[in-house]
Structures are given as structure tokens and as C-alpha cells.
């Protein structure tokens, strides 16, 4: 029923310590979550002292430095290193963000790095997002129109219609917002979460889509949509500066509008 304590296998222990090499000038301490499925051991926090003058400015630079030069067993996702792929989403100093966009110098004290919260862990900083991806797929994030497209070109939108998609097409699906949402932690099996609802509204708001009603029907559910409690963590944490809470609010407004 109500779980008040972490499961026994989730208690985080103390890990290894990797001191900075002699002669380092500007040393910062990184505490990084480590867990491997290879044995039955609990997760631990490993401590790495890094001379940040010798590496690039971002947290991702520090992680890459650790993997290349200090501890090759550290596992994390990364690809574009410029905030467009969403791979390096993780929890840095208590906030979900992209490691490649988070400057080390903006943070005080030890730098805590954890995987995205409340998701199953694949290894270390890699969380399993299969469920979240499937939820995204369940809202059918593609254009559905029954009218035939013009024979001589694509479906057109006015500049005003196109402007309604601003603030939504920019989402890179890093799921920082979804995994920051307490409501998603509590009911992630039924609540779709802010990233998926933002994507759902992106298609509801698209003037070329002809299935707004079906989309609203599919979302009208005590959990799928209405488990949103307007906690606003999603908007606060979004590394792209988007506002999923506003998109969810718009979906609720449309649900009301068609009922009254």
C-alpha cells in the first residue's frame, strides 16, 4: 500500500574514492551514483576528485574525463554534447537536467550526480525509459488527417497556426520533466507524465491534425491526464526552458470547453 521506506536493495552505500592527481590546482569533488546488475550488491556513491582546470566546462566533460582517464567502468549515456539529443539527462545537484548544458562552475560544493529519479536502472547513470517511450507512443505522436493532402504539395499552415506549436516542437524527449514529477513517481504506470502530455498537446494544437476529439477522448482519464497536480516541477526542471505544465493546462481547458 503506502511505501514509506526504500526497498532494501535501493539503500545507497558509500563507494570508492578516487583522489585528484598531485599538483591539481582547481579540484572539485564529484559524487556519482554507481550500480551494476552484474551482482546483488546495493548501489553506492563513488567519489571522484577532478581538477576542473584540465577539462571542459560542463558536467558532461567531467564525466567523459572520468570514463577516459580515471574509471572506465563508469556508465552513462551521451551523444551530441550540445543539448539537442537528450541522452545525457540525469539528476545533477538535485535537479534533472542535461549534463552537457550544466556548467560545473555554476555549482557550489560537492557535485552530486544521480540517474533520473524513480526509474528502473540499467547501470550507473543509465535509467530505463522503456515505459516512458511506450507512453509517448500510446498517444500516437504523428499527424492524423483524413482529408487528402493537396496533390501539388504539402499540407499548409498559416504563420499564426504554425506559431501555436512554438514551445512544443522544441522538446527533445529527454524526460527530465516526467522523471521530476512526484505524480509520475506515484502513478507512473497510469499517469502519462508531462513529456508525453506536451507531445499530445503538440498534436492537438496542430491545425493540420483532424483527430483532436479522438486525442482528447483518449486522454480523458482520472490518471492519464488528471493525475497532474500542477506541482510544476516539469516546467522548473526543463533544460530547454519549455512549459509542459502550460500544455497540460491547455488540454484540461479543452476538455472543459467541449463539455460545457
Amino acid at each position, binding site marked *: 500500500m503506502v511505501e514509506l521506506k526504500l*526497498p532494501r536493495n535501493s539503500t545507497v552505500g558509500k563507494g570508492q574514492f578516487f583522489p585528484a592527481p598531485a599538483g591539481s590546482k582547481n579540484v572539485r569533488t564529484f559524487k556519482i551514483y554507481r550500480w551494476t546488475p552484474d551482482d546483488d550488491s546495493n548501489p553506492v556513491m563513488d567519489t571522484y576528485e577532478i581538477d576542473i582546470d584540465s577539462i571542459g566546462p560542463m558536467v558532461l566533460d567531467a564525466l567523459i574525463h572520468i570514463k577516459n582517464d580515471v574509471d572506465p567502468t563508469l556508465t552513462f549515456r551521451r551523444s551530441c554534447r550540445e543539448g539537442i539529443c537528450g541522452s545525457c539527462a540525469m539528476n545533477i545537484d538535485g535537479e534533472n537536467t542535461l549534463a552537457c548544458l550544466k556548467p560545473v562552475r555554476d555549482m557550489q560544493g560537492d557535485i552530486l550526480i544521480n540517474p533520473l529519479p524513480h526509474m528502473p536502472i540499467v547501470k550507473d547513470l543509465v535509467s530505463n525509459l522503456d*515505459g516512458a517511450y*511506450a507512453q509517448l507512443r500510446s498517444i500516437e505522436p504523428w499527424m492524423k488527417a483524413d482529408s487528402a493532402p493537396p496533390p501539388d504539395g504539402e499540407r499548409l499552415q498559416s504563420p499564426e497556426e504554425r506559431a501555436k506549436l512554438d514551445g512544443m516542437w522544441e522538446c527533445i524527449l529527454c524526460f527530465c520533466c516526467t522523471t521530476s514529477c512526484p505524480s509520475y513517481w506515484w*502513478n507512473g504506470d497510469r499517469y502519462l507524465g508531462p513529456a508525453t502530455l506536451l507531445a499530445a498537446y503538440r498534436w492537438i494544437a496542430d491545425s493540420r491534425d483532424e483527430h483532436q476529439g479522438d486525442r482528447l*477522448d483518449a486522454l480523458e*482519464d*482520472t490518471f492519464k491526464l488528471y*493525475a497532474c497536480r500542477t506541482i510544476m516541477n516539469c516546467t522548473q526542471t526543463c533544460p530547454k526552458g519549455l512549459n509542459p505544465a502550460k500544455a497540460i493546462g491547455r488540454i484540461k481547458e479543452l*476538455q472543459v470547453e467541449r463539455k460545457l
Partner: protein
Amino acid sequence: MNATSPTHHTVMRSQLGRARGLGSGHSGTDHWIVERVSAASLLPLSGWFVIQMFRLGGEDYEKVARWGGKPVNATLLAALVATSFYHAEVGLQVIVDDYVHGKAHAPAKLLVKIGTGLLGLLGIFSVLKLALGRTAAKG
């Protein structure tokens, strides 16, 4: 959600199947509207009630019963009681949705409905007794 977690049974159902689940319950909008309408209605009703209680503070039963016997006062009192417990029911449902999972979920929701319903009825009955009791006793 984790198929390999030792604390859960192994789930081989596809992620998409789990995400779609039982589909939409086609409810939630009415609950959302009622949550807000009842909250907004409670503002003037509670304000009126607080003012009346200050006015009647320290008065004897006869005076309070005469006040409660007036149709407008009795109506507003009944509306206050009904709206309060309706709002409580709607709000407690949300807490149950958030914190009570598994087999206990449905009974907990039912319990909230029954509990707030009975308390609301008790309140309404008390208003009726206050409003009609005197006349009935006299008659």
C-alpha cells in the same frame, strides 16, 4: 514497471500494452470542474458563515435557533455543509489516488465517498433540526 526487479513478478507484457493499459476511463473532467467550482463556492459561503458566527457568538440557543429558522440562513447553512463535504470528498479522492495503490485503492475510494457522504448528511440533518425543530416542538 521493472520486469527484472526482484520485488515484482516478472512481467512479459509489452511496454506499449502496459502503457495503453485499460484505455481511457472517460472521466476526470467533471471531477476537475467540481473541484474548482466547489472551492470557489466555499469562499463566499465560508465568509458569510464566519461573519454570522461572530454576530451570534455568546448568544443563547433560542436566538441561534431563531436565526437558523429563517429560510435564507437555513438554505445557506445547508449549502455550506453540502459544498464542504462534497469538496472534501473530491479532494480526498485525489489523496487516495496519489498514495493508496494496489488492492486497497478501490475500497479506499469507496470509503471516502461513504464517510464524507454520511458526515454531510449528518450536517444537513442538523441544519434541518435547527431550522424546523422549534416550529415542530411548538406545533
